[in-house]
């Protein structure tokens, strides 16, 4: 492989990893607090939709980003209330919200615009070159010549990491995920903390959706997230609920997808459909490879009941 191909591959990996990273960081927050984040697919789709429609109407991308995180958070609120207040099963509730989000976005896409799918060609976020750094070999074009949201995704890892490891609130959140009874006995409210964590997760996942609709494609189509939320969940397990490692998980899946896209041009005797399977197969293979070493938050998926 020569230099331009490598650059192209790495750039594509970073690009594909960006939406996954937003979703995965949100998922880490939700799951650290003890709530499985199966609903991220729906939150992401909601975010992509909210952002796209807002930009279509207002032509303002910043408003669009805000709207996407709010839409993501709204879908998350359903999960937060159901799992915490009604103690429903996290996995199935997440799935229900995924279906609901798929239906509602598809319905409103037509319903809001008079029964027909509108033609959406939205302005997308353009790349921002970081002066000087972008002239570095390899790292320059790959890391410092990216659109705004990509920088934001990778910069967000640091505050999320510090929050979970170094702040009182973050440690309480993790305590709630490990042992809610203990957290409760020192004055924390596990129910409230879990709900907030899920809603914050929704805002993150919504931004992940905005990356798709406002940065990558500039449009919204039915079910456009197409399993990316689930790939982000795989990345969380690969990264063992630690933000920096989760980033590598996302990049791994990004690289697999980028390679898959690139292979199509090499004339190998593989059809494009087999190649499209690779990200899912790689995710499965890595999950199998990690096996039981993955230690999830102890109280994840379990409801807390005050005595």
């Amino acid at each position, binding site marked *: 492989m020569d230099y331009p191909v490598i650059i192209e591959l790495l750039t594509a990996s970073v690009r594909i990893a960006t939406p996954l990273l937003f979703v995965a960081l949100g998922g880490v927050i939700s799951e650290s607090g003890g709530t499985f984040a199966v609903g991220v697919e729906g939150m992401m789709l909601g975010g992509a939709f909210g952002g796209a429609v807002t930009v279509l109407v207002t032509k303002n991308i910043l408003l669009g980003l805000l709207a996407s995180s709010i839409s993501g958070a709204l879908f998350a609120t359903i999960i937060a209330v*159901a799992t915490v207040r009604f103690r429903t099963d996290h*996995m*199935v509730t997440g799935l229900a919200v995924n*279906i609901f989000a*798929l239906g509602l976005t598809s319905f409103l896409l037509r*319903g809001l615009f008079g029964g027909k799918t509108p033609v959406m060609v939205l302005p997308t976020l353009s790349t921002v070159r970081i002066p000087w750094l972008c002239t570095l070999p390899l790292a320059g074009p790959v890391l410092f010549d990216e659109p705004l949201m990509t920088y934001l995704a990778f910069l967000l890892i640091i505050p999320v990491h510090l929050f979970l490891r170094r702040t009182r609130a973050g440690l309480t959140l993790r305590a709630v995920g490990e042992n*809610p009874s203990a957290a409760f006995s020192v004055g924390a409210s596990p129910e409230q903390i879990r709900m907030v964590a899920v809603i914050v997760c929704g805002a993150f996942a919504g931004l992940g959706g905005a990356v798709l609709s406002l940065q990558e494609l500039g449009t919204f189509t*039915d079910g456009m997230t197409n*399993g990316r939320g689930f790939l982000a969940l795989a990345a969380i397990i690969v990264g063992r609920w630690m933000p920096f490692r989760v980033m590598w998980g996302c990049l791994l899946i990004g690289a697999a997808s980028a390679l898959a896209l690139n292979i199509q041009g090499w004339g190998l005797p593989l059809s494009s459909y087999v190649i499209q399977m690779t990200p899912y197969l790689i995710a499965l293979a890595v999950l199998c490879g990690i096996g039981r070493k993955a230690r999830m938050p102890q109280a994840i998926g379990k409801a807390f*009941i005050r005595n």
Partner: protein
Amino acid sequence: MSTSLPKEREVDRSDHIDQPGTLTGSVLPTALDRSADFWRRMALGGLAVSLSFVVAAIPIIVSGKNPLLAYWALVRGACGSVDSIAFALNKSTPYILAGVGVALCFRARVINIGAEGQIAVGGIAASWIVLSATALPGELLIPLALLGGACAGGGWAAIAAVMRLARGVHEVLGTLLLNFVGLLLVSEVLHGPMGEVGAGFPQSPLFPEQAWLPPLIPGTDLHIGIILAVLAVFVFHLVFWHTPFGFRLRLLGSTDAAAAYAGVSIVRSLFSVMLIAGALAGVAGAVEVLGVHYRLIQGFSVGFGFNAVAIALLASLNPIAVLPAGLFFGFLETGALAMQREIGVPSSLVFVIQGLTMVFVLCALGISLRRQRI
């Protein structure tokens, strides 16, 4: 004193004094008794459905349509004519088949959401058999194709089961990711070995006529698949409530401690329940290609898996209640298509109603369980 009796586990009761709160597992219905709350659960399902229709009226109003007119069009479209009823029954068939399997899995606390992929590979296997053994008479070919579908679907589910048991990969992620692979597999065979040359759409050649599922009522599109679905519901109703295997599944669903005490092998039960669910989904896939399309077409199973989950939940995971729940979703979808044609309300309303129904059923189960606790 017999030594084969399991030793009683020591129970640390100090838990209840020291800890300010308790943790409980997933709130999925786990009652061991059969008749006690069957009707209450049916009522609960009805309530959840009505509530979702009320909430789903909001997006209809937002899009500038009258929800009452929309629902009226939906009802008329679903049961207005013999044709539409036949169409709805055909639609319900794969949902019911896959839904029974999902209900059994959930009942054993195995969250199998891979019906979509299992249906896809079941369809591929059935199509392959039908297209390569064209010389066989229909009486042989159809059962063979159904069997092939069952094996393929079961095998697909077994992959997820093995990953869970051997490598600890949670079945939710395993089955979900395999769904995408299964769907792409359909596209792959249709663009490769099984595709119809020169067709504008990715599809296989038309099946030989003796492989088509015969009509149940001559003159309509209704095929015999629905008989299969009803049969599956009753068989697994009996299996679930009247066999040792069913009892083991119910034990698994209640508590780990109870299952362990009774000597239930989690490995074997998980594997067999996944296998059954996969096989049922595979049959659903075979029925869909043999009875509706008469060929394999790209994306024929899209959405079926989540439908099956929604149906299993609406049935409160009771095998026999899957029948009304599955019929409801079949009719709902048929009606929604007519509603879209007639008054322009998008048919994706079905997913809105499905998602809402699931959320409401889950919440209602949560409430009823909380009552029981007190």
